[in-house]
């Protein structure tokens, strides 16, 4: 029977295979003709002037969320408010007053990467983007 090879139920099999191939190719098709460059961050003048963040840039890039979580734990549960980094420099453990003081440009700094990586942090459920705007308004 080697000579009469045929695909049985051809319609259904081919339809299934077309769906399979379409699913496999979907990430390629979705991005067809699109260039998706990595987001470029804008630093505020204050952040540029400070040059260094609390930790080295690479560590902040990958681990800032864990640092913030740790800060919250320390402040809220242990009432310890001072963070000493590896170089011995002291910082107040505060998202609003320390982090957002330099990085006051949420849209051009925080949001760019978060949107790109599809991360929606709940920080801003409570913390306002830039506390200074509020204090100015008072």
């Amino acid at each position, binding site marked *: 029977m080697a000579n009469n090879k045929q*695909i049985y139920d051809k319609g259904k*099999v081919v339809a299934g295979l077309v769906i399979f191939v379409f699913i496999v190719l979907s990430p390629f098709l979705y991005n067809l003709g699109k260039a998706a460059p*990595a987001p470029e961050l804008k630093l505020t003048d204050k952040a540029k002037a400070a040059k260094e963040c609390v930790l080295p840039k690479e560590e902040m890039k990958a681990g800032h969320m864990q640092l913030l979580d740790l800060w919250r734990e320390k402040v809220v549960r242990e009432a310890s408010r001072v963070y000493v980094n590896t170089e011995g420099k002291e910082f107040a453990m505060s998202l609003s007053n320390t982090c957002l003081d330099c990085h006051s440009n949420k849209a051009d700094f925080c949001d760019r990467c978060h949107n790109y990586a599809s991360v929606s942090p709940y920080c801003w459920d409570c913390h306002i983007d830039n506390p200074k705007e509020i204090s100015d308004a008072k």
Partner: protein
Amino acid sequence: MNSKYMFSLAAVIVLFLLAYIGVAGIGLYGFFGIFIPYAAAFIFAVGVVYRVVDWAQSPVPFRIPSTCGQQKSLPWIKPASFDNPACNGTVLIRMILEIVLFRSLFRNMRFHFNKGNKFSYEWEKWLWLGALAFHWAFFVVVIRHLRFFTEPVPVCIQWLESLDSFFRLEFFADFVQVGLPGVFISGIVLLAAVIYLLLRRMLIPQVNYVSLAADYFPLFLIIAIAVSGIMMRYFTKVDIVGIKEFTMGLVTFHPKIPEGVGSVFYIHIFFVSVLLAYFPFSKLMHLAGIFMSPTRNLANNSRVKRHVNPWNYPVKVHTYEEYEDDFREKMIEAGLPVEKELTTNGG
């Protein structure tokens, strides 16, 4: 100790060492980051299509569904429409329920001797539960990884992510902090379920007896994938934007190796690539096989419709009429009854 699972475990360890030495030792970033993933995706897609086309060339001339209920019969007998489907519509529903809910595993039973030598059956739902948790968690994990392969990320994937991190699990200790980034429950369920399925194979003697290296290998591989992924997300930390830049490069065919991404990432994608490339050659093909199972995807309509075997070849037959034509005179002489009398032809 069992040579079958030790062999599979050793294979996964060798794969780990290959990727680790290849990246951290020799620095073959392009090979492990670009060539291997593309090759694996190609082998996966072509291999699956090849296997399915190959299977589809096997004729299934007759209806062989496994029936699990009353067949459609007289109008006053209630049929089990989904367990013994009579038409394609109910077959479709049966297939969907099988693929989505694993109903055949739900029927799993354990046999044992109860009180001396009284044979008894026992409900055994753990395999069904473990398999369901494993497959659904894996599905969710795969779907939410699409955030690395789409820009902008579709809203439905964002919804899935927020649903997946619905339980804000947090854990603090001196040595470890878990909570941010949000814990994806699917990753934990996947790892727990695959470990359960592995232990089941190792510890239950009957299951252990029927398990081969080919059964253990994907389990170890998936454990390795899950562990390396969980490591990256919660513990060793990686530059996620750099990784997305890299994965977007892959899907837009402008691959670029990211800077400063640790070897855990390369190990993770190497394991995933191996899983994809191994897929068409392995039992993992049950992904396509479930659709092609004649015991599931056929309607039980043998009594309603005639199914002819397609490879029936024409058989030379000698009918009774022809036989009588050959021997009519002799039959009449011997006094045997004939259907046509001799007198009708003059010669």
